[in-house]
C-alpha cells in the first residue's frame, strides 16, 4: 500500500501528485478504472437488451420453464408428452445429448484404438486400410458426414411393410431399428439394484483376492466367482420380483410399426457420424501415443521372449496412455460439443429442443443461456473426470 508515514518532526505532507506518483496507488487506480469500464459496457448492453425486450413485450426470466411445451419430441428417455412443461422438454433434449455423446465416446474410443493400432500394423493391407479410413473421415466436415449417414440409413433399409427380421422380434426398417423390450416391471428395478450390489461385491472380493495372491501366491478364480456372483444376484432379484416374462414385441400396425424399442435413423446418423469422425482423431492419438513409447521397450520385451500382443497390452499401451489421455480428453469434448450438430438431421438433442423452445416463447437469451451452461457443465465434468484419470495414470518422473 501507499507509503504514507507521518513521521514526527514535520515531514512535508503529501500532495495529490505525490499520491498519483506512488506505484501502489497507481496500480489500484488502473484496476478501478478498468473494472469501471467493463461494468459500464456491460450495463450498456444489458440495459439496451432489456429495453428492446420490453419494447417487444417479452418478459425476461425463467418462469417460462413451467409453461406447457405443447410440442411433441420424437424420442425421449423419460415420460414426455406435448402437455409436459418446457423444463421437461429441455430435460429430454439434455438426456438425448448425453445418450448420444456417451455412446459416441465409448464407441469412438474402441474403434479409434483398433484403427490406431492397425495403422502401425506390420501387415501392408491392414496398415493401408486404416490409413484410408483415417484420412477419409478425418478430412470431411462432420456436418456433411451427418447428412451422408442420414441420407444413407433410411434408403438402405426397406419400408416398414417389408421390414427385415434378422432375429425374431428385431426389425430393420427405413424408420430405424426396432427391438423387443420387456414390459416395465418392478423386477427390473430390483435387478438393477442387484447388479450394482454385485459390482460392489466383486470390486471388494477382487481387491482381497489380489492381496491374498500377493501375500501367499494362492490364485483366486476371480473370473468364475465374479460371473457367478453377478448372474446369481441378478437372477435372484429377477425371481424375487415375480419373474415377469411379458415382452413388448414390435409389430406392423397399419402403416407403421408399433411397440418395442425404436432406434431412430436420426439417432443412428448422429451416433455413426460422430463416432466415425471422432474415431479417426482417436486413432491418431493412439498411434502417436504408441509411437511415443521408445522402440527399446518393444525390443526389451522381445528379448525376454514376450509375445508382441502381450507386450502391446502390458508394456506399450499402459505407457502410451500417459501421452494419449490429454489429447483424448480434447476429442471427447469435441464429440460432446459436435453433438449439437444433431439439430441438422432432426435428432431432438438439447440444441434442437432449445431452438423450438426459443421460437415458441421468444425467450432466446434464457434458452441460449441454459444450453450454453449445460454444455459448459458437461465439458467441465468430462475434463474433471479425465484430469482425475490422467493423474491416476501419470508417471512420476524423478
Amino acid at each position, binding site marked *: 500500500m501507499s507509503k504514507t508515514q507521518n513521521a514526527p518532526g514535520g515531514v512535508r505532507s503529501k500532495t495529490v501528485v505525490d499520491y498519483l506518483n506512488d506505484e501502489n496507488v497507481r496500480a489500484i487506480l488502473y484496476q478501478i478504472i478498468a473494472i469501471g469500464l467493463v461494468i459500464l459496457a456491460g450495463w450498456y448492453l444489458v440495459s439496451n437488451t432489456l429495453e428492446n425486450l420490453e419494447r417487444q413485450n417479452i418478459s425476461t426470466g425463467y418462469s417460462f420453464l413451467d409453461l406447457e411445451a405443447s410440442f411433441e419430441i420424437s424420442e425421449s428417455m423419460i415420460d414426455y408428452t406435448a402437455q409436459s412443461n418446457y423444463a421437461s422438454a429441455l430435460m429430454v433434449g439434455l438426456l438425448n445429448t448425453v445418450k448420444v455423446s456417451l455412446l459416441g465416446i465409448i464407441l469412438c474410443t474402441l474403434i479409434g484404438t483398433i484403427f490406431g493400432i492397425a495403422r502401425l500394423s506390420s501387415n501392408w493391407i491392414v496398415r493401408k486400410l486404416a490409413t484410408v479410413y483415417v484420412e477419409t473421415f478425418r478430412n470431411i466436415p462432420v456436418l456433411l458426414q451427418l447428412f451422408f449417414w442420414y441420407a444413407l440409413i433410411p434408403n438402405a433399409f426397406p419400408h416398414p411393410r417389408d421390414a427385415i427380421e434378422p432375429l425374431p422380434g428385431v426389425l430393420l426398417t427405413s424408420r430405424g431399428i426396432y427391438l423387443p423390450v420387456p414390459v416395465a416391471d418392478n423386477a427390473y428395478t430390483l435387478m438393477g439394484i442387484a447388479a450394482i450390489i454385485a459390482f460392489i461385491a466383486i470390486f471388494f472380493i477382487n481387491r482381497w483376492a489380489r492381496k491374498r*495372491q*500377493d*501375500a*501367499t*501366491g494362492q*490364485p483366486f478364480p476371480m473370473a468364475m466367482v465374479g460371473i457367478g456372483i453377478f448372474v446369481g444376484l441378478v437372477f435372484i432379484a429377477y425371481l424375487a420380483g415375480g419373474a415377469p416374462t411379458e415382452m413388448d414385441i414390435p409389430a406392423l400396425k397399419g402403416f407403421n410399426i408399433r411397440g418395442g424399442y425404436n432406434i431412430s435413423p436420426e439417432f443412428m446418423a448422429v451416433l455413426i457420424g460422430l463416432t466415425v469422425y471422432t474415431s479417426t482423431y482417436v486413432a491418431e492419438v493412439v498411434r502417436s501415443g504408441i509411437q511415443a513409447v*521408445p522402440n*527399446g*521397450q518393444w*525390443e*526389451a*520385451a*522381445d*528379448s*525376454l*521372449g*514376450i509375445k508382441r500382443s*502381450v507386450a502391446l497390452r*502390458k*508394456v506399450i499401451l*499402459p*505407457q502410451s496412455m500417459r501421452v494419449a489421455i490429454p489429447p483424448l480428453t480434447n476429442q471427447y469434448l469435441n464429440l460432446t460439443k459436435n453433438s449439437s450438430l444433431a439439430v441438422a438431421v432432426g435428432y431432438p438433442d438439447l440444441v434442437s429442443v432449445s431452438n423450438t423452445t426459443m421460437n415458441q416463447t421468444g425467450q432466446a437469451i434464457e434458452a441460449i443461456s441454459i444450453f450454453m451452461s449445460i454444455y459448459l457443465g458437461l465439458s467441465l465434468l468430462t475434463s474433471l473426470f479425465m484430469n482425475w484419470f490422467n493423474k491416476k495414470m501419470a*508417471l*512420476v*518422473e*524423478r
Partner: protein
Amino acid sequence: MTTPSATSPNDRNIATSGFITVQSLTKKFGTNTALDNVSLTLDKGETMAIIGPSAAGKSVLLKCLAGLYGADGGKIILGGDDVSQTNAPARFDWAERIGMLFQQNALFDSMKVWENICFRQIERGTLTRKAAKEHAIDLLGHVGLSEDSAFLTPSDLSGGMQKRVGIARAISTDPEILLLDNPTAGLDPVLSNHIEIMISKIATQRGTTVITITNDMHIARTRYANLVMMYAGKIYWAGPTSDIDNAHNEHLTQMLNGSAQGPISMRMGKRGDQIVA
C-alpha cells in the same frame, strides 16, 4: 577363443566350434550395411568386450545375438543351435538362456520393479507371482538394492539404480549368456567400477558367458579376457586382451589416446576403408 587377426578383417580363419559362433554375419538396414561379414567365436564361460566408435555396429551385433534382428547373411550358432533368424525354433528356448541389458535400460514403466525383473517368468507361468516377487527381491540383493525398491516403478529410481535393476532382469533366469550394452554408460567412475566388479562376480559365480559393449578401454583390458574392436560394421581386431600389449600396443595406444590415426580418423574414413595398424 576368438581368432585374432591383425592384418585384414576378412581373411580370418573362421572357427566353427565354440559356444557362441558367428559366421560371416551380415545385417543390412535398407541400403545401410550395419554388419559386414562379421565372424567370431567364444567359448562357454568366457568374457568378451566389444569396443569401437559409434555406429560401428556393436549394438546391432548384440541385438542379432539376442535374437532381435535376423541375419541377412551368414549364421549365428549358439550352443550348436542355428539361431540366425528370429523365428528359428530354438529361439524360444534361447530367450530364457540369454539375458540382455539395454543401453537405455529399457525397463518397463508400466509395472513395478519386481514385475520387471521377473516379467518373463510371470508371463510364461514358470513362477507364481509370489515366487517371482521373492526371486526378484533376492536378485535385487545380489545387485546391491534394498527390498523396498522392488515395489517402486523404474522411473522412481536413479540412473545407477535403474542399471542395477536392468542387470537383475538380465540375470533373472540365470542365463548362460549375458549380453550387456554399455553397462557403465552415464555412470560415475566409482559406480562404473562397482558395476563392473558385480558383473565379473556374476560371471565367475555362475559360469556365465558375458559379452559387453563398452567405451572404456581400461575396463575392457582389465575385466575381460577377450576383446573385439569394431569399425564400420566390420571386425577390425579380435583376440585375447593379453595379446594387445605385444602385437598392437602402438595402435591401441593411439586408439586410447584418440590421436590422429585413432578413433577420430576412423570415424572420418569412408565405409569399407581398410584401416591397418
